[in-house]
């Protein structure tokens, strides 16, 4: 039962994490470790996620049909699960990105930053 507490804390980031995963896979198929690395690096380490929390998100996205997966051999010759974006996932990413941009722009306006 104490597990629930950590789950609640993770939920805040969940939507963001989903978007980051989709964004990462836009560049092509990748396995979990690569995805974690890419998210870490591209966000300049600002969004350092606990890597473990990546997997529930991956499974959720796969169940929703936004991702597809297959098993294969990695560059290190390890058996790994490769995730890739489906058409539905691509559409969702575009929609989410647009929404995100809109929101950040709105927040920017409120905070008095000049619109670009």
């Amino acid at each position, binding site marked *: *039962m*104490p*597990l*629930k*507490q*950590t*789950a609640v804390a993770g939920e805040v980031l969940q939507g963001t994490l989903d978007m980051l995963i989709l964004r990462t896979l836009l560049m092509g198929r990748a*396995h*979990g*470790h*690569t995805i*974690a*690395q890419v998210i870490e690096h591209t966000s300049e380490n600002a969004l350092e996620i*606990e*890597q*473990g*929390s990546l*997997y*529930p998100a991956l*499974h*959720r996205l796969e*169940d*929703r*049909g936004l991702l597809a997966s297959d098993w294969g051999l*990695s560059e*290190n010759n*390890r*058996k*790994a*699960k490769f995730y890739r974006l489906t058409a539905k996932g691509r559409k969702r990413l575009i929609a989410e990105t647009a929404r995100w941009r809109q929101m950040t722009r709105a927040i920017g306006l409120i905070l008095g930053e000049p619109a670009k």
Partner: protein
Amino acid sequence: MSFRRFTERSKKDALLADDIEAHFGHEVDANIARGLSPEEALRQARLKFGNPRVTRERVWEYRSFPWIEDAWRDLRFALRSLAKAPSFAAIAVLVIAVGIGANTAVFSVINTVLLKPLSYPDPQSLVFLTNTGPQGSFSVANVPKFNIWRQQTQVFQAVAGFDQAGAGLNLTGGNDPEQLQGVHVTADYFRLFGAPIVAGRTFTPTEDSPNGGHVAVLSYGLWKRRFGGNPNVVGTNIQLDGHPYLVLGIVGRNFVTETPADLWLPFQFDPTSRDMAHYFRVAARLKPGITLQMANAELKLAADQFRSTYPGALGPNAGFGVAPLQEIMVGDTRLSLLVLLGAVTFVLLIACANVANLLLIRATARQRELATRSALGAGRGHIIRQLLTESLAISLAGGFFGLIIGFVGVRLLLAISPAGIPRIGPDGSAVSLDANVLLFTLGVSILTGIVFGLFPAISSSRMNLSSALKESSSQAGVGFRTGKLRSLLVISEVALALILVVGSGLLIRTFMKLQAVDPGFDTHNVLTMAMSLSGERFQQTARVAQIVRDGTERLKNVPGVTTAAAACCLPLEGGFGLPFDVVGRPKGNDPNTGGAGYLPVSWSYFEAFKVPILRGRNFTEHDDGSGPGVVIINEAMAKKYWPNADPLNDRLLIGANMGPVFVEPARQIVGIAGDMHGNGLNRDPSPTMYIPVAQMPNKVTALNSRIAPLWWIVRTSLEPHPLSKPISAALREASGGLPVAHIRSMDEIVVLNTSRQRFNMLLLSIFGASALLVAAIGIYGLMGYSVQQRTQELGIRMALGAPASTIRNMVIRQGMILAVIGVIIGVAGALWLTHFLASFLFGVKALDPAAFIATLVLLSAVAFVAVWFPARRATRVSPMAALRFE
């Protein structure tokens, strides 16, 4: 949402483990590449990833039905924890079972009477045709009305008339003559009600005309019983009243009629008849799409047309209308059932308050357990859900037993005490356990569980963790808040119980008043029975008078019989009414001087019932067709129509304007009889005219013989039932072989007449008593608990020298304060609520002081007893033990 997430959980978990394994591999590879030692590489990877088990558990949880699985776990836990407190569980389940049982009982009757549709096809479109007027509407009919109603084909698909099997028929032609219930119906009757025909056919319109011949349709029951279910009986003749009747067909088993019927005969009335006496009822089926309003509008026009065709037959404020068949059949039962439903809701509320109290006490004792669970990470929602599951387990178990108690109880009660409720079948056999009742009980159980469980669950989840853990178990949670909540619950229990007990007190007083009513005649040692005079033999008054004379003569010779008489009808069982005119008195605008009961009786009627003749003379054997017409009126009629004059100087013209059947010369009023409560013990005697049977116009006798049997009234010197055999035998000999039926004593008829009041009183008393008991348990439980909690304090007080009586009085005062507050609130509630009972009361006011005071005394006494035992226990606290109690 995809259902995929719930499938193949174990397999997917294994794959996830592999996936995570690969992730670690890659991270370790990367770390080694950065120059770390293999051990350090693994450690860093673990740090970065977090606990892989947690990840797997989170995915696992995401793939589960958390609600159902949690509920299942909660339920198992609840059952375990209830099993650990069996006496608590048993009391709680029992109290809830009583509450739900009472609700199930009343609802199963309501379901049968009010909710279940009639068993005919498309019952919503079936209506009764009614006569409307300022006095209400009456679903009775005569031939001219039937004719005009039948013409309203724009709104009705079919219109049929039927009588109530009043007269009965004699099935003869065997060794064993039997009186049967034969319902007269018009040709459309079977089509209207969608009667299933298992063999043969029903009447044609030709067979339902004045010379249509002797034909009959048998009921399934009669066919099985008398004819062994032989289909070849169709097309053969059976003997009714000594005449052969051709059996046309047999109606199926499931065809239930309001008046139980053994067979059906065509009405065969003369369509040109202008008789205005009402002697049958008319039902119709609305055309599809026709509403009651549309039919009523059409009938308004029909009433105008009727008024111009038959001047004087319909008053200026009278008219025609329709009412749903079910509504007419149910009548005023609806209100009394709804009041009973209100009463049982109270019982259930009291039960809920009681169990809520028990749960609060239990939750206090479990505070440490709950605190421990909370400390281990259970959220407040978890604890509330857990406690609610426990209360739902209790309420569902209570509901299960309540269903059994309620259903068996109501059937038992209906069998013991016929309630006079329509549609419930003989001894309540139609009250059945169907999906409606089951769903109702299930719904009430769940609702109950939430109602009594939510409060304690919320209040006990709201606690201070550290203090609860630190406190010793016996001390924890003597909190002010829960203490107040418990007192509130006990107060409301007392208040609700008081309202119920006042209600049952009022009904008990009503019943006692009814029992105390002097019916105006002596009901004891009188045996009554019906003799059917149907058939051509009895179309003549002289023939009927002859049977009455012979029968009376023979009965006098039966040992034990003191007087015998005959009449059209029995007191308390309804009768006829006709308009009358006082000869020579101006009528003003009304068509007649007035209307009054019309009772043909034999000369010894008043003697048999021991009714006094107040003025004038009684009938004699010589008041027959050869003598001048005479009539005796009752005191109520004399007072109403001759307030300042002597009725004995006047003559009455009876039945003017009622058509040719009733035409007769004026009758001399020869006597005034004492009033009888003929229309029910709870009704004032109404104006009544008594006519000698031997002086009735022939046509009235013929009509009478068709619609009602002749009732024999036999006064005996001892208990009458043992004499029923010799009396029946004497009557059969005197009448040339006619059987008698419906043998009952007059006392039984009186009981039957008050059965509805008795049923309401019994039911409400049972509810009131259970409410009282449950409330007493509530007070007892609370005070007992409070004494137990205060053992230490009491011990100190005693050690400091407080005498036992002070301790006792302190506890008593505390408990009685709650009871008194409850009583005050209850009285206020009762003052308001009892007016809903007003229409069930007789001889007592809704604010009857006796009922209120008796209830106050009773409730206070019960509360005192409930407080007394804990108080006595308080005085037995040993100071030494109490101080060591910690």
